[in-house]
């Protein structure tokens, strides 16, 4: 799940809706999929562009923290798996930009908004990957948190987004398993490896909890997005589910979740746990996380350094079609 604090447009009561809007909401309530050429409220379209765009940006920025360890992967097999995983993420970015394009925004426009800071990507990718164990922690926790949100989004109301999610979820579950597999190897390894694994969990636990966004009581945009089935669950529901799933996995590894107040609550059938430091979350979102400048800087540099390459390809395509036109003309 790579969309946080997505601002939702408009929130009308049924009495305030136009007949068109009522018919649209009824279709959503009947779980019908909305397809690109069909009528949709402007707010629905804009909110989806923000959400899908942010998700796409997260996938491509998300290549960087893991790409950071490809050249240092400890075995050839690990290197190949990590390459395949990072490649999948670029592929997810591609599906999602395509899904966004069906809403009338181009990939270049979205990238421009990312590069200028107008659009965000998930806060999680602004944390550094310092050891090989972080490749395990990212797969296990970050992809694990993403799956929590993306599995329900397979049923989201917008057809192209829903279909992209179905493909993405298949790959994400492989990603999470490879992350956990790295953690298992590290935890069964030397004392230094186990210490690296614990350190990675210590650093990624709270940032992973932040991925779900602030508590619902502070989330102003949830209600409309949920009515439109762009958002399927509340932030707190998903966070709880993630903690409940992850704590036994940490125990199996013999690792300690860095939360002294973590405790099973029989009554609610879930764990009680500490909230992340939300001031840190808002600082990261505002651009002050440990790696914001590097991550965005790397993307902007890739884009700017690559301008000549993209221009060259466009120029060649124009020449080629001009030649083909001239050849047809000569043949006539």
């Amino acid at each position, binding site marked *: 799940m790579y969309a946080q604090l997505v601002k939702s447009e408009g929130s009308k009561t049924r009495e305030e809706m136009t007949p068109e809007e009522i018919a649209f909401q009824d279709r959503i309530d009947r779980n019908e999929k909305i397809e690109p050429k069909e009528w949709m409220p402007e707010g629905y379209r804009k909110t989806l562009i923000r959400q899908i765009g942010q998700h796409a940006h997260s996938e*491509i920025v998300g*290549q*960087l923290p893991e*790409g950071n360890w*490809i*050249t*240092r*992967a*400890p*075995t*050839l*097999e*690990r*290197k*190949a798996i990590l*390459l*395949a995983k*990072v*490649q999948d993420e*670029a*592929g997810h*970015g*591609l599906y999602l*930009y395509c899904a966004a394009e069906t809403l009338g925004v181009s*990939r270049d426009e979205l990238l421009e908004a990312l590069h200028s800071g107008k659009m965000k990507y998930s806060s999680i990718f602004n944390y550094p990957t310092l050891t*090989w164990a972080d490749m395990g922690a990212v797969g296990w926790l970050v992809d694990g948190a993403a799956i929590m949100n993306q599995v329900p989004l397979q049923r989201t109301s917008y057809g192209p987004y829903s279909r992209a999610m179905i493909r993405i979820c298949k790959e994400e579950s492989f990603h999470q398993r490879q992350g956990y597999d*790295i953690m298992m*190897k*590290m935890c*069964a*390894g*030397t004392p*230094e*490896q186990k210490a690296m694994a614990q350190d990675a969990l210590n650093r990624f636990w709270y940032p992973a909890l932040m991925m779900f966004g602030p508590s619902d009581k502070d989330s102003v945009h949830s209600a409309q997005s949920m009515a439109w089935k762009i958002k399927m669950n509340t932030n707190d529901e998903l966070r709880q589910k993630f903690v409940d799933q992850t704590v036994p996995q940490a125990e199996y590894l013999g690792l300690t979740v860095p939360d002294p107040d973590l405790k099973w609550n029989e009554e609610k059938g879930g764990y009680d746990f500490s909230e992340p430091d939300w001031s840190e979350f808002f600082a990261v979102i505002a651009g002050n996380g440990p790696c914001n400048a590097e991550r965005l800087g*790397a993307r902007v*540099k*890739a*884009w700017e*350094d*690559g*301008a*000549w*390459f*993209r*221009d*060259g*390809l*466009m*120029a*060649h*395509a124009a*020449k080629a079609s001009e030649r083909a036109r001239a050849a047809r003309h000569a043949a006539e």
Partner: protein
Amino acid sequence: MPSLPDMTTPNLDALAGQALAQGGHAQVPAPDAGQPQFVEFLQRMGDNCLILGHRVSEWCGHSPALEEDIALANQALDLIGQCQLWLGLAGEVEGRGRDADALAYLRDAGAFRNLLLVELPNGDFGVTLMRQFLFDAFHIEMLRALRTSADPRVAEIAAKAEKEVAYHLERSADLVIRLGDGTDESHRRMQAALAKLWPYTGEMFLDDAVDQAMADAGVAPLPSALKAAWDRTVASVLDEATLALPADGWHHKGGKNGIHTEHLGYILAQMQFLQRAYPGAKW
């Protein structure tokens, strides 16, 4: 040369027999042991893939377009996969208990046998693409010839790799053409990339004693025998790309025999870091 001690070992089979008789060592050298030239050849194949795969993987997340990120990761993945096959076989033939990981992660630069071309820094995207094209055009000819190798294991790896490399070449040639015949700037950059890399292409076609032994055994072609086909591919692609073919001139060499550029040491420092810092750990 790390393989030297083996070359002077009189009779590995006899030594293995003695060791078994003493009940000490369970490890018997493979039947191929004592074929250091074959091992050298396999390392040359594997190291080219490993080092070029490393370089290509450096682009991950940094390339000029999302499609390129995907394509380059895919290509690096192919190359790492091929490297696992070649180095795996090298270790098996060598019979000293080293697997592909041991060869990749625990040899120092002087024991690497890749061409200098593949270890050169990525430069701009034009240098990366041109390097890929020049190598792919050689690689495909080598693999095609290896499909009829007298050693079935070599033929099998070559058959698998050839399919992948045919696609690498199709892609790199296509992009060289488009960028050569694109804008003034893309043309200039591709021509500059060619000038920079050209002196490193000659090494691909130099024959030495290892190559001669492989050719005599019917395992592999003489590299020099691949040059005519390479010349044709390169001339035709550069022509379509409106790029000028550089004059033949001075060529660097050494990689095949372990004398590398300064760049390889840094690649290995990065690649081998974890294996060196935590000896014996399982990952």
